[in-house]
């Protein structure tokens, strides 16, 4: 047993020390110049990929939201348009209606004026006719009387009649 371990330290201590030095040196150098930047880069990249995915998801949601909003806006616009059109139609009808009313009233008024005018003209015309008839009747009566009073007997009769009528009071 003693022989087995004889010179163990003498022969192998050096190797153990060199191996330890090599490993620790490697650990320090790699830790500082390799593992730290590499792990950092990998973690950063993973995080950025995750971020990108999350952002893409958010963008998708935003997109969907915008589409929904657009749809809603469109719907609203359509309703508004319909409303405006409806209003316009109503206004148009009102206007036509009003115009017709106005036209009717105006027509009626003009008709009235025309009637009055006609009546006036008629009255004037009638008066004229009456005058003419009167003067004609007078002329005829004059002519008849003149014819009648050419005969003396007849004049006497008439006087007699008239006197009879008078009778003395």
């Amino acid at each position: 047993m003693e022989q087995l371990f004889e010179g163990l330290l003498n022969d192998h201590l050096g190797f153990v020390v060199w191996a330890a030095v090599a490993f620790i040196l490697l650990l320090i150098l790699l830790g500082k110049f390799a593992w730290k930047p590499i792990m950092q880069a990998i973690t950063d990249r993973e995080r950025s990929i995750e971020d990108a995915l999350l952002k893409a998801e958010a963008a998708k949601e935003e997109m969907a939201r915008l589409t929904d909003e657009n749809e809603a806006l469109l719907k609203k616009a359509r309703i508004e348009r319909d409303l405006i059109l409806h209003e316009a139609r109503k206004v148009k009808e009102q206007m036509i209606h009003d115009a017709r009313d106005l036209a009717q009233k105006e027509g009626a008024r003009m008709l009235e004026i025309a009637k009055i005018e006609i009546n006036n003209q008629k009255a004037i015309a009638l008066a004229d006719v009456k005058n003419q008839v009167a003067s004609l009747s007078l002329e005829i009566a004059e002519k008849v009387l003149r014819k009648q009073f050419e005969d003396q007997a007849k004049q006497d009769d008439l006087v007699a009649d008239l006197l009879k009528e008078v009778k003395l009071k």
Partner: protein
Amino acid sequence: MNFSHILNSKKTAISLILGVFLTFCACKTFAIQHGEHATEEKNAETEAFNPTTAILEHIGDSHYWHVVGETSIPLPVILFTDKGTEYFSSSVFHHGTEAHKGQFYTYKLVEDKIKAVDANGEVDKEASSHVYDFSITKNVLAMWIAGTLILVIFMSVASSYKKREGKAPKGLQSLVEPIIMFVRDEIARPNIGRRYQRYMPILLTIFFFIWMNNLLGLVPLFPGGANVTGNIMFTFVMSAIVMLVVNFSANKYYWKHIFLPDVPVWLYPIMIPVELIGVISRPFALMIRLYANISAGHIIVLSLISLIFIFKSIAVAPVSIVFVLFMDVLELLVAFLQAFIFTMLTALFIGTAVEEHH
């Protein structure tokens, strides 16, 4: 295609190395079986090819780094002795055949371990106990190469993260990122829970360091081929660090679970020692698991190659190659799996230590 090419090169390289052995060796087992007769044979300039020594030599640490054939790179030797520090190249030992007279002692390579020797060339145990070997050995160098490779890869990846901030990964970045994500999402987060981020650096470092060392161990050519993660000293260091991290990040619930468990008081003399053993045995299991798995893989591959030399027949080579190919593919999986299991269990232990009880 590329892959089988590498495997073939490994085969070639190992074959060449073992070929050298064969040139100088004869069958040792044969020698043992045939006693005196064999000794004569041995004298006849042939030595046994002993697969055990050959394999253990290949999975062990060394002061040389075999490149190919007889070419090997001498590595620096650093010795801390009671009299002072010594530096020299391992080439002075001439592969263990010669002693080197240093400043303070005379040294010799005995089974690839540096020992102080006396004037007669005999190992001086007393003097050897004052010599501490801090050499940059094959495993130390291989470990540093793996570490440097990881540093270069991940710093360039980090810089491309900075350059391409917030963009999709590209090139090396896209190769590495899934693995980092795997460590985070499959290892750290489920086992540690909410506070996993604090432990990411150590988990990632452990994972990539072990994996890189495992993979480089499978490469048969020069910069690879060392058995770092199959070295129990290495796994000891890793598991010791894990143990420290786990126990220093432990919260009061963890310590209460150890020292005041929810059992009748008369069970405490049993429970507390058991829990304390658990604190040690968990990292200990980590150490043994990684060491045994990786060493076993190397041993199997080397054994299959050794078959060629045991049978001394080139006809065995195709069979060996097929099996080695299969084993290497399996080892690729094991390399990942063991790094994963080590990190996974580390995360699990940290998770139990920082777990909040409501």
